[in-house]
């Protein structure tokens, strides 16, 4: 994102007493993580110490410190999903992508994240792929979802050639 655009948003919100978390959301959404230089920017503009900004952003699991892969897969780990075989789903997806939660594949294509509950508990197990939620996701469905992404990427590559 152009820095100027970020400054505009900061200017719009900075007089609010509670602007920090909304602004971190804006940065997280645009960059996919919180780049270090934006921490300096926020602390200057909001008149907070860097420690305060750092403290807040590391408290919340939504804010990431590393850039994510191209596609983000989020898996629910809560009880309702566990009751429907969620543990097997978690294990399957980790094996399939050969990474653990919080990691990104070496090719930078997939980031795997875990969280507790999408509120889709009547249709468990739940998995979110690039912001779209899926219910009743059993291992076969994971294969389909991943294949879809991979074939989409392949088409993009072909177009570029």
């Amino acid at each position: 994102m152009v820095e100027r655009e970020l400054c505009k948003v900061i200017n719009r919100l900075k007089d609010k007493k509670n602007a920090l978390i909304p602004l971190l959301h804006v940065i997280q959404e645009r960059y996919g993580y919180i780049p270090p230089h934006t921490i300096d920017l926020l602390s200057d503009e909001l008149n907070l110490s860097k420690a305060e900004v750092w403290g807040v952003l590391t408290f919340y699991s939504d804010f990431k410190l590393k850039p994510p892969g191209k596609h983000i897969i989020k898996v629910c780990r809560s009880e309702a999903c566990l009751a429907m075989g969620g543990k097997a789903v978690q294990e399957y997806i980790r094996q399939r992508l050969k990474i653990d939660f919080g990691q990104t594949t070496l090719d930078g294509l997939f980031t795997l994240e875990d969280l507790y509950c999408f509120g889709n508990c009547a249709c468990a197990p739940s998995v979110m792929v690039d912001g779209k939620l899926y219910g009743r996701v059993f291992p076969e469905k994971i294969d389909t979802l991943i294949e879809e992404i991979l074939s989409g990427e392949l088409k993009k590559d072909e177009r570029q050639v």
Partner: protein
Amino acid sequence: MKGKYRIFIPRDFSSSSLGADEVSVAIEKEARKRGINIELVRNGSRGMYWLEPLVEVETQQGRVGYRNVSTKDVSSLYNAEFFKGNGNHSLYVGFVEEVDYIKRQTRLTFERVGIIDPVSIDDYIKHNGFLALKKALEMRPEDIINEIKISGLRGRGGAGFPTGIKWETVFKTPSEVKYVVCNADEGDSGTFSDRMIMECDPYLLIEGMIIAGLAVGAQEGYIYLRSEYSLAKEVLQKAINIAYERGYLGKDIMGSGKRFDLEFYVGAGAYVCGEETALLESLEGKRGIVRPRPPVPAVSGLWGRPTVVNNVVTLATVPWIIREGGEKYANYGTDKSRGTLPVQLSGNIKRGGLVEVPFGITLRELIYEFGGGTYSGRPIKAVQIGGPLGAYLPEDMLDIPLDYEALQRVGGIVGHGGIVVFDDTVDLWYMMRFAMEFCARESCGKCTPCRIGSQRGVEVIDKLKNNRGDEKLLVLLEDLMDVMMNTSLCGLGGMAPYPVLSILRHFSDELGLKKEINYF
């Protein structure tokens, strides 16, 4: 031009997760292809999630439904002229309101959910919307509070505190500025009633919050929404904007000269922020660290001002009570648990979904008669009630009535009204450990019993699993849970032992432990 045939396809998080959006696109496309004039409404879900995507068609006698529709069924549905409500299709379920699951419910808070177009304010008004607000604008604050007290409404977020008393405290605490904060940080596994209200009937929450503001003398409100609920955010934002445009929010509510401003604030992935004081810290832009009480938020809440903090379903129940009267609400339910509770059936259950019923119904009726038993068809081993901090109960205890006090007597909680069912393949060691692991991960870190205790809990459970005959370890675990329950600052550390102790208490055989514990 409006279509000749009205078709309803839900647009809520869960229906979409089962393909409702794709079905909606396919149905519109096919209508164009065949030259059929339809009007497609994206309603909310009725809460019968085992039927979703449930496509409904308006007929003169009422709405009929077609269950579990996928894009593959669209062509055959058109061949059967489903848009006329024809019954000659294998997915036909008949009149939706005649389906037993809906018919047996008492829908007060959820009276409009699934019926209306959520963002259409006119639809809301047509279905008795804002009648309560109109009434409340002519009432004295004391009378609004009194009506809520008569209704017996208790906080539906988990703690079950009487709403009228909370409001009265805020009303009586002198301050120029007061706030109404809606706790929409519904993080408990197995719960989705708040999400459904926000996605399927957002004006109801807005109306409830304005009434709360009028009752306590607050002119500003916040909805603290968890970030996982992206659709709720979109729907609420639209609804708030429209409510401002139409004069229900802002400086002159319905021409009364009274003001109420409302905005929402998105959390950032922290379970503990569902605890009201941590929520307030987070809303102030800080780390979500729990505050010691007293003072309670009703006396000193957001930025030190008297603040009503109520969860979504609680606030969304207020309009019905004001419209119909507190006494009528109190007629439902049991002695100290008045009214209805939107119960959420989930996990390994055949017919998962939202069931609003008066308190007093037994868990067995809910799970078997509404829920139809397990999804897998295997016997039920355990049921967890009230979220990740709720107790696990065995099958033979399911005759307990749904009631705050009755559940408390067996070490359980109503919590947020979520019921998660497990069949006999459940790994109870894993679930017990999970409760502590979850607490360790989500602890805000302010108090030692929760921060350290939960970590120690994980370790002791692991040790015990490998030394099942070691009674000393069992005593140690019990002791640790006792310390956490009695000395933690908030409900997270204070209730995380419930699942552990209830599993130890009721499932010692399955765990391979020789000794039972006698908690509860």
